[in-house]
């Protein structure tokens, strides 16, 4: 569910490596609408390449990928659903 203040859907996948953060992103995408912003938190370094590939395949937009203390934060804007 999108956060009432930020309007973003936070998906916390920290600690997940199998099946991994892309599972949680795909699930969030099932429930998403065009215009939603998903913020994916992960610790698995594979998330960077996976999210780029996922966005290319689904034709959605990766707004940013940032290394923050203790986690990698990826922001995805849903353009198609």
């Amino acid at each position, binding site marked *: 569910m999108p956060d009432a203040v930020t309007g973003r859907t936070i998906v916390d*996948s*920290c*600690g*997940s*490596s*199998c*099946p*991994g953060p*892309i*599972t*949680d992103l*795909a*699930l969030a*995408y*099932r*429930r998403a609408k065009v215009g939603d912003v998903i913020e994916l938190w992960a610790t*698995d370094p*594979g998330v960077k*390449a*996976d999210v780029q*590939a*996922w966005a290319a*395949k*689904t034709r959605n937009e990766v707004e940013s990928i940032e290394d923050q203390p203790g986690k990698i934060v990826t922001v995805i804007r849903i353009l*198609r*659903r």
Partner: protein
Amino acid sequence: MQRVLIVGGGSGATMLANMLARRCVETLVLSKSASHMFQPALLYVAFKNASPRIVRDERRLLDRRVRFIREPVTRIDLTARTVATAAGSWYDYDALVVATGVTTDPDQIPGLRALNDRYGNYHTSVAWAQKVWAALDAFRGGTIVLGQASPVIKCPPSPVEGILLTDELLRRRGLRDRARLVFISPYPRAYPAEPMNAVVEPILRARGIEIFPFFDVDRIDAGTRTIYSIEGEELQYDLPIIIPPFVGADIAYDPADVLDANRFVVTDKETLRIKGFDNAFAIGDATNLPTSKAGVGAHLEAKVVAETLSGRPARFNGRTHCAVDLGYGEGTFVIGSYTAPVLKYPPSRLSHAMKMMMAHMYWLSLRGWLEPAFDWYFARTDPDKRREAEAPREQARPAA
């Protein structure tokens, strides 16, 4: 003395109840069924027509000191510390452990229930796994599409095992050149964890299996025999073997926010306590832990909760250790933890033999008789230790 109430009757519930009985803890198990199935064997019922005698009476698997009541739980009130059942009974507890597993939910995807009704699946029951075998046995040529319908799955290796055993069956029957085998995955690759994909994907390709990554099933049209993905692709099938999505048990909770959108219990990933409650725990597939839904997790989580309830607070490290059947008598293991990503584990006949052995050891392991052997084995294959051991070598390796 505290009274422990365990809800569920699968491997996690049974192992924990037996561990607590040995510690002389008063334990009650409430389960909707008195039948206990060795779930990994459904794969062999579906793809090898194995004997379906993989179900035993739960009461015979439990220590005699454990009280077992067969009643479906309908409501768990964590604040009032009570559990209600469909029989109209109420039970209270000092400590609660939820081990209610998962259930398949084909109705999430339009068209999937009808498809599963006809062709079966190998994650629900013996009868449904036998439908898969019947469909494969009658297959004479065409396109077989196999994979999981959604990213939520019990036993992440099982789709790869299914397609590889299909390939093996068709080759043995001389039908492989008449079959197009298509493997669909909602992940970026055939196996979600990259190091294991590096083992699995070359095998799939060598056996001529087409891989469709990022294929998350949106709907199925039985009239045109077409599967559509959320990502916008479509595939036609002659024989579809589609693993349905999974959800948690149909039990109402108070407070309701201890369940996530898939009805999984929101659980602390280390202490295994249910969010906000010191005296309530969840183990196994029922949890929302960021790890594979598999028997090994339920086993190791049961140990953590048994220790904690015995006054020695323990923590779960996210250990996974899943055997994978690669066909033709070869196997591998998916091994990882919260802190050690999945390792690349080369295929071997020994790994396959160990998977086959587990089918026999399972019933003994429920009683806890094999714990010393498991402790030794899990310590010996600890992914964190292996990662530490390999790290200096990686750094020392000269650049190519």
